[in-house]
């Protein structure tokens, strides 16, 4: 498998080395001199062909990884790259999964700046965190999710460990499932966040899909969902989005959540929540945790992954948590110990910076209030552009099509119902960048551009099949 550059190399390494010795004699060089001779040439190590026949072949080992092919490009990142390359002044990037201001700039929350200043002033040390992470953070995150007065917290039935944002927390959960429930399946919604499949695949956990998105209604296929959950083998793990479903923006109502919990209990499945938008979806931390709390209130054991990437804008610091609600204190302690055992060979202990920011924000009443206000502002801006987009669509579109799904959907993302060809039209004709599944990110939409976007959507929907 040697590359063409090394094709002249002899197959047997020992022969190559014999050549090296031979060349050394010719050049009257010792081992060290040969090395420094090669180095002094200051060029690619392949280069010494001129000086001594096949020294080149001897100098470099054939790569072990010759046959490795380029990995496929990330479908979402590709959108951003194409957007950057576009020179049209009307261009709009609705592929981005990160919050943007009305000016379409990235946003660092004020509370984060304040917390970081506090941390800088205090001059805290940089010692290792314990494997399970920062204790103050773990307490804060579980309290935020379940409510500090929740029974499961009071009774110490929750095993919480700090994780590398949502992805890292999901991966730990997947590893736990693989180790203690080998062969058990995780059911994921169709569609779901692309990385869910990667995480489960790499963790070697089998998965299958349950119906979720109904293209007819651009809403929830509730019957399909219930039916598929019912049909799954007993003891499956059902991956649910706690709020602001990614990519559709379609969440079950509280009534529907109750029915989902019913069927999960009936089939002895385990609910496995991915909570990436608590506080960011509706603006209220409590409201966005309602689904999780509903399940916990029934005494169900559950797994919940959390992320602070969006609600605290801490995307780059990788802060989140994995929580396992167990039926006993003892089980919670044992599960926590095994989560630590999975984390140690992955990264030993989690990064400190993001954890301290969260702990500082949540731990200070003034900062906590300010955070809640900033979250309301961010969620508010998104609700605002949803409204404006809906108004523009309703005003401009004479076909009578029902655009109200834009208002019913929640969170950063919206499934527009546009198919691939229509999505391509959005990009090619209107310079609106989105993912091929028809998903747009409202976080990347400004109030000023709503009318333009409405025009683009109407055109794509009606004129492109």
């Amino acid at each position: 498998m040697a590359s063409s550059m090394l094709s002249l190399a002899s197959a047997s390494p020992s022969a190559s080395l014999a050549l090296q010795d031979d060349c050394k004699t010719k050049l009257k060089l010792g081992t060290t001199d040969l090395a420094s001779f090669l180095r002094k040439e200051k060029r690619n190590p392949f280069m010494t062909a001129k000086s001594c026949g096949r020294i080149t072949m001897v100098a470099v080992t054939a790569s072990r990884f010759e046959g490795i092919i380029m990995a496929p490009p990330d479908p979402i990142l590709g959108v951003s790259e194409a957007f950057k390359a576009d020179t049209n002044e009307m261009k709009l990037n609705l592929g981005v999964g990160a919050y943007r201001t009305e000016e379409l700039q990235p946003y660092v929350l004020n509370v984060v700046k304040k917390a970081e200043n506090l941390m800088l002033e205090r001059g805290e040390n940089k010692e290792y965190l314990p494997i399970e992470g920062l204790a103050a953070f773990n307490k804060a995150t579980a309290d935020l999710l379940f409510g500090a007065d929740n029974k499961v917290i009071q009774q110490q039935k929750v095993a919480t460990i700090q994780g590398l944002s949502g992805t890292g927390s999901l991966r730990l959960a997947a590893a736990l499932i693989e180790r203690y429930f080998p062969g058990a399946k995780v059911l994921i919604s169709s569609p779901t966040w692309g990385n869910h499949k990667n995480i489960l695949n790499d963790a070697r956990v089998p998965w299958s899909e349950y119906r979720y998105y109904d293209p007819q209604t651009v809403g929830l296929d509730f019957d399909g969902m219930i039916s598929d959950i019912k049909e799954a083998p007993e003891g499956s793990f059902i991956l649910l989005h706690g709020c602001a479903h990614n990519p559709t923006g379609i969440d079950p109502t509280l009534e529907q959540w109750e029915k989902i919990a019913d069927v999960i209990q009936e089939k002895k499945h385990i609910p496995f929540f991915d909570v990436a938008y608590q506080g960011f979806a509706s603006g209220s931390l409590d409201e966005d945790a309602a689904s999780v709390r509903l399940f916990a209130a029934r005494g169900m054991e559950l797994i919940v992954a959390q992320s602070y990437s969006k609600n605290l804008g801490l995307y780059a610091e990788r802060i989140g948590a994995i929580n396992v609600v167990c039926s006993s204190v003892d089980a919670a302690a044992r599960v926590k110990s095994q989560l630590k055992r999975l984390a140690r060979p992955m990264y030993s202990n989690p990064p400190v910076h993001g954890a301290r920011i969260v702990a500082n924000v949540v731990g200070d009443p003034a900062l906590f209030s300010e955070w809640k206000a900033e979250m309301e502002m961010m969620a508010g801006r998104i609700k605002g552009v949803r409204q404006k987009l809906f108004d523009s669509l309703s005003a401009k579109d004479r076909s009578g099509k029902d655009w109200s799904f834009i208002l019913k959907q929640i969170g950063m993302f919206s499934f527009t119902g546009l198919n691939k060809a229509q999505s391509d039209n959005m990009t090619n004709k209107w310079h609106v960048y989105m993912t091929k599944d028809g998903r747009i990110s409202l976080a990347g939409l400004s109030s000023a551009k709503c009318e333009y976007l409405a025009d683009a959507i109407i055109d794509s929907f009606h004129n492109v099949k």
Partner: protein
Amino acid sequence: MRVPQTAVMSGRYLTNRRRVSTSRAKSGFLGWWDHVPQAPKDPILGVTEAFLADTSPLKINLGVGAYRDDEGRPVVLRCVRAAEARIAGAQLLESISTAASTKLVERSVQLLYGMDVDIVKQKRVSGIQALSGTGACRLFAEFQRRFYPESHIYLPIPTWSNHHNIWRDAQVPIRTFRYYHADSKGLHFAALMDDIKNAPDRSFFLLHPCAHNPTGIDPTEEQWREISYQFKVKNHFPFFDMAYQGLASGDPDRDAKAVRIFFEDGHLIGCSQSFAKIMGLYGHRVGCLSILSGDEMQATAIRSQLRLIARAMYSSPPVHGSFLVSTILGDQDLKALWEEEVKVMANRIIKMRTTLRRTLEKMGSSVNWEHITNQVGMFWFSGLSPQQVDEMAKKFHVYMTHDGRISMAGVTRSNVDYLATAIHEITKSD
């Protein structure tokens, strides 16, 4: 309670009994986790837990390898404080984290391969920012399994305990090669070379380039050259775990000698680098995994595959620490300051070795304490037995790992006498 049918597996992770909870069955909910046993404490990090629980004022923690100053306090380097002040308010956003990562990789490999080689310009390094040394090793182990599913990893006896966990969890079977010679308390070089020769061609070996953990015993330069030569003969893959560059001798270039010998010999090296100890950035989890390729195209392909593996584990690495490292290594003054500070740390450890040895000898100990000063780096492989280690903890409140490894970084002028006394007491009858 019903445990799912599939939950029947090897005893290592499960309790032997499957309890049936009738009361739970009655109340309608399930105890899913009954078959999950309590995990044993991590052999290294568990020591800190025991230490924290000890109430004795005399207690000393010589377990985990975290540097302490002469007052026994954790240290944040001045170059780090300076870098922090510089980046404060820099708005470390997700939009720049990729660029930050790339910079971190470039500076890391430059540090590793030295300023003589423009390794970055050669474009045949696949580098990816990793979660400190552990994360870099794990990425490599996963990568190894994915592209060499039949391969093993050869680990030295002994090695950092977490190496075993990492390759095991990545499902790469482990083999070992001889390294430490208990009788001489030195390197078992002949056995090492034998094991390298006897391993099947094209095997993957993990090597500690300096300050071997836990023994502190490193091959000499000559011995490294022989090892490199033998690796060429056997076409083995050298994977270096570089956690102490600069901290072993005080000189980052000297500490990278082994890697550079292999590089000069044309090996396509894999290397995990950690900034935890050398820059005191333990909690920030900054590291780098790099793999050398034959050409740019392959380097790009490998990098893309490494990113895929990282994406399914944690998506992207934390940016704060990597910014600190890039800032320090990218600024002439800060880098010079770092080199000064790492030398101070290395020298203090070397001084403590000398002091401990001298103190023990002055006490009239008949034991040979040469190995205290012969060994290199943060750890002293004391040779104390597990029973002696337990006694040190119980009787003297001195904590170390069960293999007798002592973190010299935790020894200070104020505790070295007490430590010597304790060791002397324990070993008097030897």
